[in-house]
């Protein structure tokens, strides 16, 4: 009796859901096609429609994950993080949980909220369920450091995966190619214009040296000729201005040079690197 009753119950439930499932699968395919053809706004509409009609929540994880990917593709990172979080909540196994969590990390990397990305990496590392996924965690940690322009730490993160990792080598090369901003400033205090030459701006550096020598000569000459007021005015309005300017330029040019170096590597990563990107 009980067996019959249970059988009838299961059969009716199965028949009830089977028909609906066909339509949901069709809808899911339709939404996926829109996603694949990069019509993200419409894809979100269809995923939401699927979610609304999916009364048994069968597709919940996939829908939230896909909506998150749509928002990420549209550079709407706040919304992307929200939906990846929903996906994480509706994850059915450890792999899904990990995937959604790494997507949140990747979105934070793109959003340049590095601290949050690193915090999430640390959380994943401490989670004993993902002990075997340290390579992936270090990979994304490295990317977080890259987009935060911290190539030294990026190299260290990639080194934990493999000492000959392609990105480790790239990060080390980038870090080495940079110039020291502090050094540029210090040598400019001693010889105004030297910092600019050190950063590669030779003409600017030579002109700075020229202006400082000229205004220095004018100042000294004024004092020698007892034109104290003129000397003070030239020293304040000309010599000091160009001296300060040389130091400021030394810092600026060093930072600019370092930015060029970083952007060269970032361009390579954007256009030529074949590995997984955020």
């Amino acid at each position, binding site marked *: *009796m009980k067996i*019959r009753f249970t059988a009838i*119950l299961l059969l*009716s439930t199965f028949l009830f859901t089977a*028909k*609906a499932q066909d*339509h949901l699968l069709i809808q899911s395919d339709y939404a996926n096609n829109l996603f694949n053809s990069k019509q993200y706004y419409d894809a979100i509409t269809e995923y*939401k*429609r699927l979610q*609304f009609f999916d009364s048994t929540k069968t597709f919940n994880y996939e829908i939230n994950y896909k909506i998150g990917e749509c928002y990420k593709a549209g550079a709407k990172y706040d919304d992307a993080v929200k939906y990846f979080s929903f996906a994480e909540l509706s994850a059915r196994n450890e792999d899904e949980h990990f995937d959604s969590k790494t997507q949140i990390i990747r979105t934070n990397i793109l959003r340049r909220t590095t601290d949050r990305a690193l915090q999430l990496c640390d959380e994943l590392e401490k989670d004993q369920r993902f002990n075997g996924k340290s390579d992936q965690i270090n990979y994304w940690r490295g990317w977080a450091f890259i987009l935060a322009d911290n190539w030294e730490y990026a190299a260290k993160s990639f080194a934990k995966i493999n000492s000959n990792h392609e990105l480790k080598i790239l990060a080390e090369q980038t870090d080495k190619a940079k110039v020291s901003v502090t050094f540029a400033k210090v040598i400019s205090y001693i010889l105004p214009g030297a910092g600019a030459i050190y950063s590669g701006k030779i003409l600017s550096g030579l002109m700075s040296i020229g202006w400082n020598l000229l205004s220095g000569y004018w100042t000294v000459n004024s004092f020698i000729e007892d034109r104290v007021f003129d000397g003070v005015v030239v020293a304040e309005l000309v010599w000091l201005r160009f001296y300060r300017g040389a130091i400021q330029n030394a810092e600026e040019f060093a930072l600019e040079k370092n930015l060029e170096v970083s952007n060269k590597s970032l361009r390579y990563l954007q256009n030529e690197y074949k590995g997984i990107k955020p």
Partner: protein
Amino acid sequence: MKTKTNKRFIVAFFFLIVLLNTANCQLPTAGNIFSPQNRLQFGNFLYKDRDYLRAAEEFKEYLKNESNDTIVFRLANSYFKIGLFTEAVDNFKGLFFGSQLSEEARLLFYETIFFRNDYKSLRELADEKNYSSSKFAKEIERLKYMSYFFDNSALPDENLVLKNFPDTVQSRLVNFYQQKKFPQHKSPTTAAILSTFIPGAGKIYTGEVGDGITSLIATALTTYLAVTNFNADHQFRGWLFSGLAAFFYAGNIYGSAASAQIYNARIQFNFNKEVKLFFEQRNYFLPKIDY
């Protein structure tokens, strides 16, 4: 015994079927997801979720096959919420005659024109008998007089404006009315003339005390230097400092006039901000309507 068991079994089975069918009716039928009814259900869900653009698209599709005033209202309201005021106005107008939501649609029609910043049209339409609402006549009248605070039209009589608003806000509105009618502006001409006689005085008049004192010092110092250099027969320096003195003097006269204009513009800007905040906090004295 066996017959009794079978009977119980059959009753339970039918009870189950009825229950499942009821549940089926409760649930959105996934049979044809794009059927008008399903589009409506999904549209309503999106509307409640404030996803108005998507909701509007669903309602539009639904209304291609069905006719429903509430849905037209929701469609118009969706357009209103996302700032598509022309579409909102057109759809609200469609409910003016022969609809149970006619009164509400008329109020929201005026509200849409108000938020479109088309105050002149609002005032003209407020007197249109065809568009008027008996239920919300007061609110529409209030919107009409509120609009005078937001544009540069001549203000009507104070009593005419204020009689439409509650007693609790009368003192604030009197204040706004007075500020609007008699703004505390500075005259650019006065500022320029003051600076002609005393360099910097025009800037001090417009509240820029630091700039005024700087102008005075710069003009005075360069004039003094010009005079002393001419007296010492240093012609080049004399003319150089004279030129600088003239530069600062003329610049200050011009700057004083510009400063007065900026002062007036700032008063207007702050007034507009204050008025907008005042009405926003009170939802523009409008009832909250949604269907």
